[in-house]
């Protein structure tokens, strides 16, 4: 497969993150690979424990002991993130790839004014800016996210949840990164505020021509917001593809169950949950991790781990954005 | 999983083990010592005064002619007794109050918590001074223990109360309620076992506080006058200006013993804390 015209913002290959506990390694992320194109919005959805947040953290190299990135490659433009030194990675954080963490509410320093925390971020990467320049930049950023400039003098506890989320957004774009990871940016907010916050995020993204990875568990939100969606289960990427295609024709049984649990105006009736419980990541079931709960499991599901294969090739073979891939023995995959 | 041997457990908890060993040695010092040394020698006038350590009197004698080794052997258990009785009584009262405050809440909680907070701000020693001077009767060792216990209950109360508060709302209590267990059963079966580490830690801190308070009172001269407790020994040492006269063997042994007691108790409480809060001890 030939490289696309340099419009791949981020390429992740075979990422593995294990947590080394007393009882053995917990395989939080097991061989996740995907590409992220400039300007696109990729959703990463899954239940708690599916590895989506760990993946996001790993991209920023924020995994702490006892967790460890065991292997993999993360190519961000000309940088291979996993092989950078600590200092180089520090410089790359928020300058090349940034994060809006889950619960920005608790992520702001309670004893520092909001503006100071924004300037902190800027100054950690750019020296030599005068106070006026910094001040101007802070007001500019706050304006991007539709916050009044006076917000910069406030302390975090004086802001509402939505406002704090916007501050998180402002910080994440302060240094104009190429990739923004948003980890459940709206889970603590009510629906009305949610929509406004997401609208702001995407407007900012467009202005910067950055790519966004949206991590979450709300399929409904994903359906409205993203271009492509990746579905994670038990630390693996089980399906990935353009959102519309995925919703209409999910290829992996897990995705099918997820989609069928979404209410919509057309489909009314009884909604099924997914029976069973999430597998232990310490001692995962052999073969496909989903097979104990899978209604369509066949022979071989319990013994061999399925690879992520292209099920539906896109119109343009070289552009992964139209491809739908699934890791399931039900599909044998097509050549691209 | 096979039970780890004592040796393995001891190595895993070095502070706790070391602390317990020290405390044990101090506790054993009295009884074991009295087998070898005649405790009658701790009485006034039993030997020549102010002699420095020698073979006959390994720790020398004081201004009143008491053999100091005998004094130490007779006195250490007394101080320990004060500490443990006061600690136990203080813990008992504190646990009861803390429990009531945490479990029932409301104005009882406010009252108990308020009393504990106010009394904690007031320096305990002064309070004890007032108490001791007002009572004016001849103070015995057991009375000292009770007097000191009046100060040892506050910290256990707070600790137990906050534990009970957090446990009251915890899932397993709700579940127990739902499954029909009565209040008392819940207390006995669910709450108490989880309280044990905190009870143990509170006991240790109560004993420490009690020993500290009793020594403080005694050093001021308010202790049991005729008993050779460690604090009283120091008091007499100061009274007879042993500092100026260089009679270091008088006040040094009690101090060493006191230090051992506190270091031992401290290690035990550190060890217990490590068991209760393993995360705090991961070195950064």
């Amino acid at each position, binding site marked *: 497969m030939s490289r696309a015209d340099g419009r791949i913002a981020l390429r992740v290959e075979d990422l593995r993150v294990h947590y080394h506990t007393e009882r053995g390694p917990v395989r939080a992320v097991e061989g996740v690979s995907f590409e992220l194109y400039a300007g696109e919005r990729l959703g990463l959805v899954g239940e708690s424990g599916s590895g989506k947040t760990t993946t996001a953290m790993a991209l920023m190299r924020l995994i702490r002991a006892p967790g460890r990135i065991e292997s993999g490659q993360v190519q961000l433009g000309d940088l291979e993130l996993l092989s950078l030194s600590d200092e180089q990675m520090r410089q790359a954080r928020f300058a090349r790839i940034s994060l809006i963490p889950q619960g920005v509410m608790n992520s702001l320093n309670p004893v520092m004014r909001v503006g100071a925390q924004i300037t902190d971020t800027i100054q950690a990467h750019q020296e030599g800016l005068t106070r006026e320049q910094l001040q101007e930049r802070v007001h500019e950023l706050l304006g991007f996210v539709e916050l009044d400039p006076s917000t910069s003098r406030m302390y975090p506890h004086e802001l509402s949840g939505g406002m704090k989320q916007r501050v998180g957004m402002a910080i994440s774009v302060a240094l104009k990164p190429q990739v923004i990871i948003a980890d459940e940016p709206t889970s603590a907010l009510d629906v009305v505020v949610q929509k406004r916050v997401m609208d702001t995020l995407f407007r900012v993204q467009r202005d910067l021509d950055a790519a966004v990875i949206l991590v979450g568990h709300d399929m409904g939100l994903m359906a409205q917001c993203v271009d492509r969606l990746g579905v994670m289960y038990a630390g693996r990427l089980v399906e990935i593809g353009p959102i519309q295609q995925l919703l209409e024709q999910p290829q992996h049984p897990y995705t099918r169950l997820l989609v069928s649990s979404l209410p919509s105006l057309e489909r009314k009736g009884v909604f099924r949950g997914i029976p069973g419980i999430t597998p232990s990541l310490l001692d995962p079931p052999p073969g496909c991790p989903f097979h104990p709960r899978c209604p369509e499991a066949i022979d071989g599901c319990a013994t061999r781990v399925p690879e992520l294969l292209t099920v539906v090739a896109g119109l343009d073979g070289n552009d992964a954005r139209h491809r739908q891939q699934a890791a399931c023995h039900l599909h044998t995959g097509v050549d691209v | 999983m096979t039970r780890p041997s004592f040796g393995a457990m001891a190595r895993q908890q070095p502070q706790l083990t070391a602390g317990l060993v020290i405390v044990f040695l101090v506790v054993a010092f009295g009884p074991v010592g009295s087998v070898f040394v005649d405790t009658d020698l701790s009485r006034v006038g039993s030997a020549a005064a102010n002699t420095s350590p020698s073979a006959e009197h390994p720790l020398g004698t004081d201004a009143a002619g008491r053999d100091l080794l005998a004094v130490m052997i007779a006195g250490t258990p007394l101080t320990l007794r004060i500490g443990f009785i006061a600690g136990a009584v203080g813990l008992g009262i504190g646990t009861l109050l803390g429990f009531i405050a945490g479990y029932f809440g409301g104005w009882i909680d406010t009252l108990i918590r308020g009393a504990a907070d106010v009394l904690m701000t007031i320096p305990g020693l002064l309070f004890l*001074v007032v108490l001791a001077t007002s009572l004016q009767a001849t103070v015995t060792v057991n009375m000292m223990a009770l007097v000191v216990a009046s100060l040892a209950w506050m910290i256990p109360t707070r600790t137990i109360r906050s534990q009970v508060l957090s446990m009251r709302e915890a899932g397993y209590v709700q579940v127990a309620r739902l499954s029909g267990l009565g209040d008392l059963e819940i207390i006995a079966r669910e709450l108490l076992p989880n309280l044990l580490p905190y009870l143990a830690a509170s006991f240790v801190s109560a004993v420490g506080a009690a020993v500290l308070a009793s020594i403080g009172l005694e050093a*001021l001269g308010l202790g049991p006058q005729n008993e050779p407790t460690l604090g009283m020994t120091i008091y007499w040492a100061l009274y007879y200006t042993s500092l*100026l006269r260089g009679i270091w063997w008088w006040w040094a042994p009690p101090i060493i013993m006191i230090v051992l007691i506190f270091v031992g108790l401290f290690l035990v409480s550190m060890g217990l804390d490590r068991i209760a809060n393993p995360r705090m001890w991961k070195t950064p």
Partner: protein
Amino acid sequence: MPANYLVRRFAVFLIIVWAGATINFFMPRLAPVNPIRERLLQAVSFGGAGKTDMEAVVATYEAKFGLDQPLWKQYLRYIGDVARLDFGVSIANFPSRASDIILRALPWTLGLLTIATLIAFAIGTLLGALLAWPKSPALLHYLSAPLLALSAIPYYLLGLVLVFALGFTLRVFPLGGGFALGTLPKPSLSFAIDVVYHSIVPALSIVLSSVGFWALSMRGMMVTVQGEDYVNYAEARGLKSRDVFIRYAVRNALLPQTTSLALAMGYVVSGAVLVEVVFAYPGVGTVLFRAIQTFDYFVIYGVVVMVILAIALATLILDIVYPLLDPRIAYKR
């Protein structure tokens, strides 16, 4: 900062002082025989030059607190006296007033105590913070064990050891007292130096003994704070680790550390009082000690109330300073 916060804090202050005074009032009356009365009668019966004056004191005492008065009346009188800092007369040093004796000694205690405590707090907190920083020199970690051991020793006992080592054996420092024996206090540089010279060992014993406690406490706070989300987020944003350490971790850990300073007041004072006894330092502690030995009740109670007052005041000050450190507090209703 909002007025009602100040009002509430001041109310707490008053309650504490009131509680202390009340306990003082009821204590002697709990005994089967009122010890104050006994002591006064004793002083009278020894006779001598002050006999008629002592009888006058007894008469005043009977009039104010005599058994014929209803308890509540006695109590109110007592509270009134306390509010005016009138603690009565010293029985042992008749006719000096108790409050005079105490107030003369108070500056010595306050000076020694405040300075020593602040030094210990500053050094201890700094040490504790450094101990929690992964990049601090390993040497520091070896310090923590001996510091902990030191903190297990009560102040005054450490003082005893120090005075012996530094004063008696090495003869570097004086054996006690606030200033050289036989000199009179006067405002001059040489006297000031003498005072400082005499306070070094007492201060040292307070500092050495409490540094370990503050260091351990700060280290504990730092460990907790370093696990907080805002520290992780600060690192995520690519801030330099030194900035994260100082502005995000230490700054937040200081808050509970300051609170524990307020809570430790009572303990600090108790220890200091005993330190004074060991060093024959002319502060409130020595006054108390002598009063205990002579059963000079009015002085004893006076000291207790004054000390409680001082502690409550210090706590009040800290309560007022705290919102300056933590912007969240001023806004809590």
